[in-house]
């Protein structure tokens, strides 16, 4: 009989950066598949374009900074940033929109701050916020999901033409519409009740029609990430907890003016943000208690921005705001070392 005679720590596998990043990419596949099903080829074109631009920008910045190219390009971190951003963009976003967003993410938010591991803000969300602030019109042109009204039959060629050459004769304006959160926000402003608004064709069983399936896909991928411990469970738990507490409180106060908690959780970018964006190990808090507080802060901020702010959704802004707070959270929630006196 043979016994292994290795000394501790008995870690079976090495968690390299590349492996973690690859897992994030795998986990995004179900959600992306649902997005492609409901929104068409544009999603895939955006993903491909963002990946190419991100790898190019990463290579240029690495060579300017004199870093080894193969090592850092091979860790997939630029691809993850590109995918996170591309998924958040409208499916028929013009090519320059995707390009500016990715460049802002990789060049400004990542490399100007010192590269992977040194960036205080989530690069993909910086890219998204730059676009949201600079190009509000292009960023709000979301396609109506497949299945509502007429089936939108944009072929691959049509999508390519719209993205790279402008709309031309194609009826793009007829195909785009307000997102469910947009509808909720505008109609609440007009004084309608939540029940009336929820009868509009944009909404499905829980949240937006079509959108709810993409959310389900991202939830499945996200749960797998937590199961494989690629993402810390405290962050999504804290985020969803914070959002549930806020939305339930307001829902109980006045159910006609505030959307129910399940709608808030299932619509917009909440699930995607909770599992894929907020869990970025570089920009999030690193202590167990800190992660809970960090997540809860994002959840509460999302509700505040949605309910009382100027934008229909607030995941990106909330994540960036809590990114600033993460180092302070780490400082105050440092776990006690065994034997250390409690303060």
């Amino acid at each position, binding site marked *: 009989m043979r016994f292994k005679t290795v000394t501790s720590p008995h870690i079976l596998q090495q968690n390299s950066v590349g492996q973690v990043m690859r897992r994030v990419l795998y986990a995004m596949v179900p959600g992306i598949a649902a997005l492609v099903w409901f929104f068409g080829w544009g999603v895939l074109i955006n993903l491909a374009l963002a990946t190419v631009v991100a790898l190019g920008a990463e290579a240029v910045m690495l060579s300017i900074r004199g870093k080894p190219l193969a090592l850092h390009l091979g860790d997939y971190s630029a691809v993850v940033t590109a995918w996170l951003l591309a998924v958040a963009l409208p499916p028929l976003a013009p090519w320059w929109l995707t390009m500016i967003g990715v460049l802002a993410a990789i060049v*400004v938010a990542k490399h100007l701050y010192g590269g992977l591991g040194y960036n205080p803000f989530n690069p993909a969300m910086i890219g998204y916020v730059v676009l949201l*602030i*600079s190009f*509000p019109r292009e960023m709000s042109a979301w396609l109506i999901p497949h299945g509502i009204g007429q089936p939108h039959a944009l072929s691959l060629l049509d999508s390519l033409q719209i993205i790279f050459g402008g709309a031309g004769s194609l009826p793009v304006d007829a195909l785009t519409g307000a997102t469910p959160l947009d509808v909720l926000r505008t109609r609440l402003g007009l004084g309608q009740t939540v029940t009336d608004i929820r009868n509009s064709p944009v909404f499905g069983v829980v949240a937006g029609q079509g959108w709810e399936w993409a959310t389900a896909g991202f939830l499945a991928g996200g749960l797998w990430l937590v199961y494989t411990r690629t993402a810390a469970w405290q962050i999504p738990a804290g985020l969803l907890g914070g959002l549930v507490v806020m939305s339930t409180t307001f829902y109980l106060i006045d159910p006609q003016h505030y959307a129910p908690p399940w709608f808030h959780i299932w619509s917009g970018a909440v699930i995607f943000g909770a599992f894929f964006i907020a869990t970025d190990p570089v920009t999030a808090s690193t202590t167990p208690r800190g992660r809970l507080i960090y997540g809860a802060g994002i959840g509460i901020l999302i509700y505040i921005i949605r309910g009382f702010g100027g934008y229909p959704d607030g995941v990106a802004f909330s994540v960036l705001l809590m990114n600033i707070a993460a180092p302070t959270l780490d400082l105050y929630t440092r776990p006690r070392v065994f034997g250390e006196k409690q303060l």
Partner: protein
Amino acid sequence: MIEMSYRQILQNGVWTQNTGLVALLGLCPLLATSNSVVNGLSLGLATTLVLLMCNVAISLIRPLVRPEVRIPVFVVVIACAVTAVELAMHAFLPGLYTVLGIFIPLIVTNCCVIGRAEAFAFKNNVARSAVDGIATGLGFLMVLVLLGAIREVLGQGTLFSQAELLFGEWGNSMTLHLIPDYRGFLLAILPPGAFIGLGCLIAIKNVMDARVQRHIAARSATALMTAGS
């Protein structure tokens, strides 16, 4: 104390001790009004004028002021100069005055004005102080105009828009539309654009300085080698 030559004073003000890029004084007006070339140029000129007036005045009254009370005296002199500039702009350039708004009276809080008064004008004669005021002002103006140009081109695709506010009628024809049919990049006009732009300018200046240093070091090394051989 070794007196600096005029050349050194100029070099210090415009480059080595540049208010905007090295000392990072007066960031509030620098970031807030540099959203177009004309705004930057106007505020730069106003600040230069204030700096010149304050440096000359403080250098003149230097023998009369006891060091213990110098700071309150500086404050009063600066406040007078800024008020004079503000009233003059209100009288002669009302359009520009409305555009720049609060930032004209806020020149009074620009740390570089009291900084130059304390560090230079209170210790030097009138001619030197005047040159220092102009040099510091020019350095500030340079950064304002450069940052304004970058943000205006990126943000609106134009240069010298609204030039009529500063130059009168013929300023209308100065506006350059560099990129036709430009959609506008709002971020460059908004405050984040100012921060990112200033950061890039500082980085460029540091790179240039490092290059020059390396060049000088290399040249002195070769000079030593040739002298040795």
